[in-house]
């Protein structure tokens, strides 16, 4: 039998006792589900660099032993909170009814916590997944998360914020499972935020299902402690005429990964994944996407931009998979990185896998330094070097932030990016 990583072994060793305390304890169906997850995980272990999808992201510092205590455990960035219309708060991975503000949610929105659902014996037909170890682990250990259902044609006005706040004096592991379902024609704007203090590993898994004509704008702001590990997986199914628009702003965590799998299942559907990552020190951020066009006549778009200072490392892996007979599909992908130091590094791997012949696809990846000519031009007008550099970085980020349709979220992300720049 192969030797598992120390952290994987720890998960396996304490599973039996964990089963008794995790939500849904005593429910046989839930136990069976968790056990199947653990079994799968124990066969796989944490991904390592020999696995193609994990070539550029090394989890060894997480899996090989106790967290590195040398890391600063301060939050990545202090900022004013976004003023959302409704708010769901999870503290250390557990739903906080007191801190959440949900009274204004319109009729037709059902919002519960996963712990509540599991405790009530509800067994979700959780999508079993193909060999993704971190989903299997999440199934075994999921403790709480958001269960959100928006009924047919209900348009939720404003922005619903989901805040995951972690404050840990002791190293801890948090497995969150969210489930978001929009029925036909439903519309929702979501702001998912993660922030915290201390050493911890958080593993949010989110399953999204959008029925015919549904529209979800999903904004994510990742501002975890600079000692934290944040490994998120988001799967989204997009039916005909539906649209999924995601924008992820990352500037927190020691190591983070956003893995997104979007399946486009109908005509005139849209998947739009954009994001910006701002890294410094020895931060690592991995954006990995798989976009599946399973039928004809739909569109996917992706634009990611990264700004890398210090010894940081960025990864972008984007795969567009067009299934046989998925004709008249367009899939575009662009990744740009701006390196502010000689020691920063970025790895890009765009991939197209196309089995239909009437499609339009593009991908591009660039990385470079600040334009010396532009920098000198600004200096020659009296703008100090530091300020000139910031102007150029802000200009680089400007057009990807423009992709954010919601005005208040866009302004919020602009302010966050500017404060990050002030600190670098």
């Amino acid at each position, binding site marked *: 039998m192969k030797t598992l990583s120390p952290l994987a072994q720890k998960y396996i060793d304490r599973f039996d006792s964990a089963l008794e305390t995790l939500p849904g304890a005593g429910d046989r169906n839930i136990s069976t589900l968790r056990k199947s997850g653990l079994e799968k995980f124990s066969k796989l272990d944490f991904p390592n660099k020999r696995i193609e999808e994990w070539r550029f992201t090394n989890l060894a510092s997480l899996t090989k032993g106790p967290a590195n205590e040398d890391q600063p455990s301060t939050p990545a960035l202090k900022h004013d909170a976004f003023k959302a219309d409704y708010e769901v708060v999870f503290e250390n991975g557990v739903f906080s009814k007191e801190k959440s503000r949900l009274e204004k949610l319109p009729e037709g929105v059902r919002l519960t916590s996963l712990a509540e659902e599991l405790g009530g014996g509800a067994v979700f037909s959780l999508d079993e997944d193909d060999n993704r170890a971190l989903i299997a682990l999440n199934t075994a250990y999921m403790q709480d998360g958001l269960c959100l259902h928006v009924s047919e044609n209900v348009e939720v006005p404003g922005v619903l914020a989901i805040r995951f706040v972690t404050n840990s004096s002791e190293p801890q592991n948090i497995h969150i499972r969210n489930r978001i379902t929009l029925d036909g024609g439903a519309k929702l704007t979501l702001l998912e935020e993660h922030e915290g203090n201390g050493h911890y590993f958080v593993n949010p898994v989110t399953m999204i299902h959008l029925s015919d004509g549904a529209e979800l704008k999903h904004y994510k702001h990742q501002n975890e402690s600079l000692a934290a590990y944040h490994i998120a997986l988001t799967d989204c199914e997009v039916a005909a005429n539906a649209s999924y628009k995601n924008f992820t702003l990352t500037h927190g965590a020691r190591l983070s990964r956003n893995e997104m799998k979007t399946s486009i299942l109908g005509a005139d559907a849209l998947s739009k994944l954009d994001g910006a990552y701002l890294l410094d020190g020895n931060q690592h951020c991995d954006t990995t996407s798989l976009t599946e066009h399973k039928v004809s006549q739909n569109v996917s778009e992706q634009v990611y931009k990264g700004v890398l200072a210090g010894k940081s490392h960025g990864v972008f892996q984007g795969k567009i998979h067009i299934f046989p007979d998925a004709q008249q599909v367009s899939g575009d992908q662009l990744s740009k990185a701006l390196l502010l130091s000689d020691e920063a590094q970025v790895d890009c791997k765009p991939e197209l896998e196309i089995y239909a012949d009437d499609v339009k696809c593009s991908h591009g990846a660039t990385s470079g330094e600040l*334009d*010396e*000519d*532009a920098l*000198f*031009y*600004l*200096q*020659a*007008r*009296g*703008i*100090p*070097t530091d*300020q*000139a550099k910031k*102007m*150029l970085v*802000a*200009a*680089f980020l*400007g*057009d990807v932030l423009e992709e954010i349709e919601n005005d208040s979220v866009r302004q919020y992300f602009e302010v966050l990016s500017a404060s990050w720049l002030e600190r670098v």
Partner: protein
Amino acid sequence: MLEIKDLHAEVGGKEILKGINLTINPGEIHAIMGPNGAGKSTLSYVLSGRDGYEVTGGSVTYKGQDLLDMDPDERACSGIFLAFQYPVEIPGVASATFLKTALNAQRKFRGEEELDAMEFLKLVREKSKELDIKDDMLKRAVNVGFSGGEKKRNEVLQMSLLEPDLMLLDETDSGLDIDALKVAADGVNRLRSPERSALVITHYQRLLDYIVPDFVHVLADGKIVKSGDKSLALELEEKGYTDISAA
């Protein structure tokens, strides 16, 4: 105002300026003419402090200070303005933001109060009008999608906003038709004053019909080989550089 003594400079290990001597007093306009490759643009970059232009000998004193010791932004704030031969396009930075940032950086440097958005707008509108620049240019990104003429006019606009003491014009005439040239020259002439000086670098005499210099120098192979008044420019136009340099 500016005193250049035996200035030597290299680019990429190659000596381009081989001992330049030039003194510009307040209120004077000097023209530097010369064939391609003589070192005209190098001189303008050395004076404005661009990276990669290494001074290997000599000195430059500006208003009594060692100019070569100053950063590019300090030089600009102290009143040196380089009008670029090829103004740089900066996507994502709106012209108005750029102008306001530059103006306020210079005001701050001089210990003056920064202009607020309204004051700035009023000033920039006034200056744009003088130069026949449309307001919408201010909303566009710096030089992006500008025609050659628009770019040069934008340089002159920046100059009239920043009101420098020493204007360095690097081939401001290149790529301009005669109307655009007149507008640009007009902008420079408007700034002429007994305290303000200019160094006009040009390949052709044409620009000097509109910006009339007090002195004309011929730069060849990294040295000033001949100096005179404005009639020297006409002589050059007639005889070409070869004759003059050989003389």
